[in-house]
């Protein structure tokens, strides 16, 4: 009980609250800008958190991610340009409402749905994470090795239509993660005689390059020679019924929000699926179960409620595998894992034993972030709308410069800026050739733990090749890994035929 109370007290300290509030506000503004999403914002802002306490840092980043999820809906509703991939389904009903002059009402519905979905999943995380972590403590190196193998296979399917391309990307990510000092011999491996590589590639420049810089390079292709965001003209009706969501309308969407939140939690808790899947699945369910399915896509509030509550409920749920097993379920969770590591902690079941106060502080921050999101969303709705209007020629130079400075800040090293630029180019090619940069990054992050588990298994079993078969959970997980690979290959072959 003591760590819980101490954690809550830490979370409500003025400094933590201030950073949390800043995180949510910046997240909403950033998410509203098309092309910049939550994980990208986390990558850009992680360097700033070096100088914060762990709770303030994680709170700030979690707030950033939560805010970005709602922010994505702003440009989706007003400009028909989803600020984040998961807000794509929000455009289908949000933009028609904007065209009818009801953009503000659509945004309010998106806000209430986002907050309710987010709150639901946070509550679930708080309730089930600790008991699950107790069970997870019984998992030894063989289980961890098998589990990470399974996670890598599942995650290989994200962001690409072909699992082989996903596995290639994951393999390359594993390889990049192995550059540095080898854990058993403590000698340099794959460093090519470059002394800066002996401590390995830092996560921050790699993440900034892959997520932010490469995205900006692609966004610039579309902006150069094209119309800028300044061209958008928005009109807002002043009639109260066109601006506010009535209690009746809110209650009418209650079951949609609840169902979508449950779908979002289910999808978010499984590594590899992610918010866009939750959002599309929920929209589909909402339409199928609606009494007026033909109105979907023409400005139906339930459509916005389905998409937004589902994608926001993924935020809390995706932290379940991270906190319980130390395995990031999606990109945002992977970036948060990086932030934990930067602050000297390793997410996983041991975190509940070693840093219980911090974990409960984070849980409290997650709940408070939901409240802040509601407040900021209500107060700054009109103000944040302006973020979508920043011209490309102003926005992108600032983001590019921030990428450079962000990569430099981590270790005050110009070498890291080169690393960021190189991974920016790699990310550009990966995106254009449809290789999953998500699988690459998660492979890069997970490989040290994967190799450590393997070494532990090999050393403790003294090269006994059947060591894995004495651990039933490890066997089940390895069989599942094989099943996922075979099933996906067969599925791909059938699709091609």
């Amino acid at each position, binding site marked *: 009980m003591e760590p819980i109370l101490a954690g809550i007290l830490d979370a409500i300290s003025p400094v933590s609250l201030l950073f949390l509030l800043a995180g949510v506000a910046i997240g909403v503004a950033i998410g509203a800008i098309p092309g910049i999403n939550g994980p990208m914002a986390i990558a850009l802002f992680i360097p700033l958190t*070096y*100088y914060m306490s762990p709770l303030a840092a994680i709170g700030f980043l979690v707030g950033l991610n939560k805010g970005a999820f709602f922010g994505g809906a702003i440009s989706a509703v007003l400009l028909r340009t*989803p600020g984040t*991939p998961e*807000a*794509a389904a929000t455009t289908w009903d949000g933009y028609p409402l904007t065209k009818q002059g009801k953009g503000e009402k659509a945004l309010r519905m998106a806000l209430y749905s986002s907050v309710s979905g987010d709150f639901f999943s946070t509550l679930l995380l708080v309730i089930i994470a600790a008991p699950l972590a107790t069970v997870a403590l019984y998992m030894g190196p063989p289980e961890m090795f098998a589990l990470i193998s399974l996670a890598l296979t599942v995650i290989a399917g*994200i*962001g*690409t*239509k072909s699992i*082989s*391309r996903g*596995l*290639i990307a994951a393999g*390359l990510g*594993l*390889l990049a993660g*192995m550059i540095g000092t*080898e854990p*058993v*011999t403590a*000698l*340099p*491996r*794959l*460093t*090519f005689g470059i002394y800066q590589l002996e401590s390995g590639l830092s996560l921050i420049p790699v993440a900034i390059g892959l997520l932010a810089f490469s995205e900006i*390079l*692609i966004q*610039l*292709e*579309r902006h*150069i*020679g094209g119309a800028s965001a300044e061209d958008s003209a928005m009109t807002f009706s002043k009639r109260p019924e066109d601006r506010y969501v009535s209690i009746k309308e809110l209650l009418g969407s209650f079951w949609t929000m609840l169902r979508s939140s449950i779908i979002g939690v289910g999808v978010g808790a499984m590594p590899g699926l992610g918010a866009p899947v939750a959002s599309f699945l929920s929209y589909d369910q909402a339409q199928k179960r609606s009494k007026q399915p033909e109105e979907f896509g023409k400005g139906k509030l339930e459509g916005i409620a389905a998409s937004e509550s589902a994608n926001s409920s993924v935020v809390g749920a995706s932290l379940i595998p991270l906190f319980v097993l130390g395995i990031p379920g999606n990109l945002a969770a992977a970036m948060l894992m990086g932030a934990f590591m930067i602050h000297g902690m390793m997410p996983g079941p041991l975190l509940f034993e070693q840093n219980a106060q911090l974990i409960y502080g984070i849980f409290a921050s997650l709940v408070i972030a939901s409240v802040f999101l509601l407040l900021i969303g209500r107060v700054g709705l009109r103000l944040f709308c302006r973020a979508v209007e920043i011209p*490309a*020629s*102003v926005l*992108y*130079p*600032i983001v*590019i*410069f921030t990428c*450079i*400075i962000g990569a430099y*800040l981590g270790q*005050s090293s*110009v070498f890291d*800026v080169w690393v960021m*630029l190189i991974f920016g*180019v790699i990310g550009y090619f990966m*995106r*254009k*050739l449809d290789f*999953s*940069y*998500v699988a690459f990054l998660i492979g890069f992050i997970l*490989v040290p733990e994967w190799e450590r588990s*393997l070494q532990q298994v*090999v*050393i403790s079993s003294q090269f006994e090749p059947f060591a894995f078969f004495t651990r039933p959970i490890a066997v089940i997980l390895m069989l599942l890994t094989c099943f996922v690979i075979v099933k996906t290959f067969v599925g791909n072959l059938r699709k091609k035929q």
Partner: protein
Amino acid sequence: MTRVQRETTTYVAIALACVAMLIWVIPTFTPPYPGYGASPALVPNVAVGLTLVMAVLELIRAGVGRWSGRARPPEDRQYPEDTDSGGFSQLGRLRLGHLARFMIPCALMLPAMEWIGFLPSSVLFLLVIQVLIGGVRPVRAVVLAVVVAGLMYAAVRYGFNVPIPGPYGW
């Protein structure tokens, strides 16, 4: 180059790189086996092996498809156009000129910081990037460059107490 040709070229390049890794890079740049645990080369070999197998499988699949004469969907035969799905995949045309246009100033900025200092090189860099993007308002461009470079300098130097790159401290 069609999408199929581009994919085949990519897989061939990946497969060749993997072979080079397995034959030369990993044996040369990996510590010797210490006599306990798994070999330091095991995990790199597994990662590269996995990548190689996947690339070869894709090449075999492409070869079988071509040999069997099965017609591919039109979008696979055409030049890949840009997609704007809003998702992770941004499959599209590789614009190397565009890439070079932005990478060259970024690459030049780093040595420029050593020669002329952080602030002047940052202002120049921001101006160049704005021009390349198509910023047409000169006053706004100069003000933005000076303000952003100045704010970053203040944040890095005085906010985070991080040493500024370059010989002059500004």
